[in-house]
């Protein structure tokens, strides 16, 4: 499992796309922190305090995390099925280890990226919030789980990319819309997006942690489907 995870982790760091995403992530985080510093006093007055430095990163994640994760991991499983390299893996290790290894590798990649992004803010904020980091990682892990699931269910990488992009655009829109509408359908969809829980987090600080259940569910479903799949 950790062999698969390490390979996934390493390959994510060596791709051009991930390089671009890391650059955007770090650039926006540092840029936002610099911007916040210029308006430090009014933001302090609004009660945002040190959190304002993290807001840039969180805002970026809320809007672009689905797209970032999808663009890097839409083919995390089905690429190997499409090229049939999966046959080498599946004859050497268990299918559960392949799926879990893929998730762990991708999860570690994002955990490292987000940790580094938050570390880059320290010179501006003079503080490091472990809770913000955990919440950011949980938020991204929702999408890692979702892309893993899509990539397991959909055998063609081109199709999972197409569907992934649509979901990446639709989820933030529906998720954020659901928090301010009375439309039952949109509200219902809101419950299955992380946005509902992260918005509630302002009043109920533990809500964001419920989101952990979603990647767990996505992994369980992926394992179930992948175990039955012909490779």
């Amino acid at each position: 499992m950790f062999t698969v995870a390490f390979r996934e982790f390493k390959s994510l760091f060596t791709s051009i796309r991930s390089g671009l995403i890391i650059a955007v992530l770090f650039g926006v985080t540092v840029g936002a922190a610099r911007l916040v510093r210029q308006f430090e006093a009014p933001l302090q007055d609004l009660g945002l305090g040190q959190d304002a430095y993290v807001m840039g990163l969180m805002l970026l994640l809320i809007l672009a995390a689905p797209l970032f994760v999808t663009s890097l991991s839409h083919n995390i499983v089905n690429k190997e099925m499409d090229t049939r390299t999966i046959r080498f893996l599946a004859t050497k290790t268990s299918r559960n280890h392949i799926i879990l290894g893929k998730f762990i590798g991708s999860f570690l990649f994002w955990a490292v990226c987000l940790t580094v992004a938050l570390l880059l803010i320290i010179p501006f904020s003079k503080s490091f919030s472990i809770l913000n980091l955990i919440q950011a990682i949980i938020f991204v892990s929702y999408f890692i789980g979702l892309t893993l699931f899509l990539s397991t269910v959909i055998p063609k990488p081109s199709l999972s990319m197409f569907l992934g992009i649509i979901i990446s655009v639709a989820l933030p829109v529906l998720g954020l819309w659901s928090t301010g509408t009375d439309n039952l359908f949109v509200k219902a969809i809101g419950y299955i997006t992380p946005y509902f829980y992260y918005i509630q987090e302002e009043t109920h600080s533990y809500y964001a942690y419920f989101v952990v259940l979603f990647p767990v569910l996505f992994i369980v479903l992926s394992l179930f489907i992948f175990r039955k799949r012909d490779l």
Partner: protein
Amino acid sequence: MEALQTHQLTKTYGKKIVVDSVDLHIPEGTIFGFLGKNGAGKSTFINMVTGLIKPSSGSFEVLGQPEKRLESIQKEIGVLPDYSTFYDDLTAYHHLNYFQKLVKQSLSKQDIIHVLTQVGLEDAVHVKVKKYSFGMKKKLGIAQSIIHQPKLLFLDEPTSGVDANAVLNIHALIKEIAAQGTTILLTSHNLNEVEKLCDEIAIMNKGSIQTQGTMKQLREQYQQDIVIHIHHRSLSEKEQVHLQTSFTELVEKIQIEETSSEIIVASKEYIPHVNKQFVRQDIDVFRLEVEEPSLEEIFLNLE
């Protein structure tokens, strides 16, 4: 113990039956050849017993373990799938290093290079696979299947697309691996290859096993007539006629010529009698050859 046993193993895709109720028993320590035309179901069969695809019905045991415990014995199985692609960004060495870690081996760099040398990739150890030819990828496929010294090895078309010299090396390697006690299931289009390498053979057609046995058993089963070629001293016309008449009751067909004769008999029990007739008539026999059907003839007989 049987290395592989299948019981009514079947795979269907919709209404199409790709593998149809196959009962196969492969004894440990044999090189088992699996023959059949394209689409006969050989690869599907191998993919099922290696856990890559799920059977529609039936069951199988690999090295004494049932299908549901297959993952627990992956370390003891080597597989060369029918279609091998690799990670373009990795070298042959990195591939084997990755694969050996997956089966929890801890081979040294020298051990990995030794395996690559065995398959003839010693000059391309550190070359990225995207620069490999089809034949080189096939060799790497064989290398990854033997890196962990499996007890049971599945080789699906191991020599297709490989140059003639490499084929000979692969044959030698297969024999060497088998000599160490590894059971090998080999599929091939190349009848000569199967005949040369395999202890036992099964011929598959339209998803079913049509026949199975050793080459000797198959020959006996599918040999309708036995052709005996005899090279002898020069015979006079009178001797030729006499010889011709002495065989009429025994042989299916006889063709006597001055220095050689071809006699076709229905059963191999008649071969000593044919020889005795020559001795009785004081005809010196220089060479007596019994023509046995090749695997190709047996294969064609099953069409």
